[in-house]
């Protein structure tokens, strides 16, 4: 038997750490302070002097915060490669969008008035849960993608990293809220969507290409749809879901647009590469073989509230709005002319002729 006395005997004084005060005399910028403003203490308010200088390139793969002094001694490489060129990931708005994301978080458990959902006619309930099945899938991938890229973001460009971290959270909530809607009102989950370009976003090996597909085209289309959620929703709960999710998507789209703008301003040669990416992704989105069989049918059915002809009319109204807003976003980002040059996929260009 080991006795308590014996164990006590083996309990030693803890070793005292060595005291090293060399960090008290660092040559870093000192005397920086910030006052909270109307929205509190935001990232913008602390982005001052040296700490606000965004390096055009960073070779630091460590976690060292921008502006901190380097450690003494050898340090390991934290990731095999880091996207050190600011044109690869940066956006002037990333910090602002992160701050906004933090202040606009919502809860799918308590901020949706679930009690406003009355029993719906069977066909409408089925159409709604089919739409939600497709949407929970889409949002699932939309959360995987920023997660994949996080380890490659340079700590010197932390604003983009923080934004992507907030996107991971937003997409978790979207995955969750559409699953909740599917299971909340007597329906269930229906038919899987079948890809629809999600794989292309996931497999992209260039951040700007990925962002053009995910943030600008993919989430742009989703945002345009959610903003018309009033046309689809049948109760206050569904309206609120679309409204809150659209608000989140707006931030993601804004990041994509401002990132592309920053990239094209600093690396104009990237434009053709992005055009190629969009050529490919537009083609996937309208390819009948890639089409999500449940999504289109359910959407048309819901838009027309069971009247399929009316649903089609409204579908084209939605599609036209999606394409117009997409082209506008590209204009803002500095990638104009896809329509005029005939580069926009004909199936999307054709939507502009619809009324």
């Amino acid at each position, binding site marked *: 038997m080991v006795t308590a006395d014996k164990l006590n005997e083996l309990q030693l004084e803890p070793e005292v*750490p060595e005291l090293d005060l060399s960090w008290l005399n660092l040559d870093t910028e000192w005397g920086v302070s910030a006052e909270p403003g109307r929205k509190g203490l935001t990232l913008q308010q602390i982005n*001052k002097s040296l700490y606000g200088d965004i390096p055009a390139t960073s070779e630091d793969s460590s976690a060292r*915060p921008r502006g901190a002094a380097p450690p003494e001694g050898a340090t390991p490489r934290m990731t095999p490669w880091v996207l050190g060129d600011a044109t690869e990931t940066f956006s002037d708005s990333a910090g602002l969008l992160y701050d906004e994301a933090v202040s606009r978080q919502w809860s799918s458990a308590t901020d949706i008035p679930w009690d406003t959902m009355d029993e719906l006619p069977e066909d409408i309930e089925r*159409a709604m849960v089919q739409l939600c099945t497709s949407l929970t899938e889409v949002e699932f991938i939309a959360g995987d993608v920023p997660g994949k890229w996080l380890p490659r973001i340079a700590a010197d460009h932390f604003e983009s990293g923080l934004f992507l971290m907030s996107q991971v959270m937003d997409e978790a909530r979207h995955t969750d809220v559409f699953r909740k809607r599917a299971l909340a009102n007597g329906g269930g989950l229906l038919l899987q969507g079948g890809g629809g370009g999600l794989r292309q976003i996931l497999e992209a090996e260039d951040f700007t290409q990925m962002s053009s597909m995910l943030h600008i085209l993919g989430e742009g289309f989703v945002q345009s749809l959610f903003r018309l959620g009033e046309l689809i929703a049948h109760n206050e709960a569904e309206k609120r879901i679309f409204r809150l999710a659209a608000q989140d998507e707006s931030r993601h789209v804004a990041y994509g647009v401002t990132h592309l703008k920053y990239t094209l301003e600093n690396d104009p040669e990237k434009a053709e590469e992005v055009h190629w990416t969009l050529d490919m992704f537009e083609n996937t989105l309208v390819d009948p073989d890639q089409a999500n069989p449940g999504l289109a049918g359910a959407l048309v059915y819901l838009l027309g509230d069971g009247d399929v002809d009316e649903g089609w009319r409204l579908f084209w109204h939605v599609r036209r709005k999606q394409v117009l807003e997409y082209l506008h976003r590209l204009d803002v980002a500095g990638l104009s002319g896809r329509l005029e040059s005939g580069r926009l996929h004909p199936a999307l260009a054709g939507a502009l002729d619809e009324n």
Partner: protein
Amino acid sequence: MPESDVVKAAKERLEQSGLPSDWLDIPVHWGVKAKEQATPENGGLRFEYLNVDVYGEVPEHWDNNTEIPRGAVPDTRTEQMGYSIFDKAEVWSDLCAGLYEDAIAERWNSSADIPWDTLEPIGSDMERAVCQIATLMSEYGWTKAQTTGRWLQEISYGYIEVKLFLGTVVFDAARLYEVWRKRALSNGGGLGRGGRNWKFLPLTQSYTFSEFCVASIMHDSMLLALLRHGEQLAQTEAERSIYELCQKDIERHLAYFVDHMRYLMLKEPVRREEIHRYMNKAEWYLAKDGDDTLYSALGVIMGDGREGAEEAMADVAELRREQIETYLGYLTECHLGDREDRLNEELRKWAGIAPEEEVEKIPV
């Protein structure tokens, strides 16, 4: 279930219009009404309440490599999405869904929820010490978000609750990064010296999720023990809030990591030695890294300035001992209580535990 007239009519209308109607043929699990549990007293419609009928059946092995939602009907044309985790034992904890909702309910905002206006000049040495700690906290937040985020693309939808919860971990870690950066840059100081980062390698290099989890248990429990001293370390109300809010977040993360490892040890006890190897590695890097600037900065704060730092190092040593005890305590909770016998020799010194060869001399 016989097809109702309304569904038949809907199919006809869709088919006449050239639209697919297969989705109306799916034998749904009709009647699942999770909303019935969504009362204010129950915390609204929490994710746990969705886990009914087939939707709540979390399989031991998930055999679909697409993004198909658990409980939906597969479309066999869908491309594989590259997930690599298909076994429940590798990621699961029954607590996930609840912790996910708790994280959202307990969310906070570093801009508005910290009383920044309580910051006041605290003297140069103290400010530098606080800023040095803030720098290292930011580093860990950054690393934690990056390394947690990378696992999302590995975990299949079968374990959706885990992914949702990890999403909150990423977001909490972002806040850990930025709240401490804000502290460093808001009170007349600036950032200090970056850490050497060797200790983070077990997080960045992990090949399996459970390897990542044990490394996270080590880092998070060390951090938690430090955050629990917030009352003693904080110089202002603002810092007190930061310590307190970060502590809540880290406690949630640990609840998951520990419960998952407990689950793994019960389901796959054969992996015990493998897990010990991961801990050997994590501890070795931690010991080698040393975190000197952290403990020295704590010495300055506990000593109320550089003059008192030398004397305060005994208190710092005590805090470091608590860190190791906290780590070992959490390991005991996940059926890895034998770790104390195998703890890294350097960490044994930190904890004041006799070297292993001394322990072996005890007659049993």
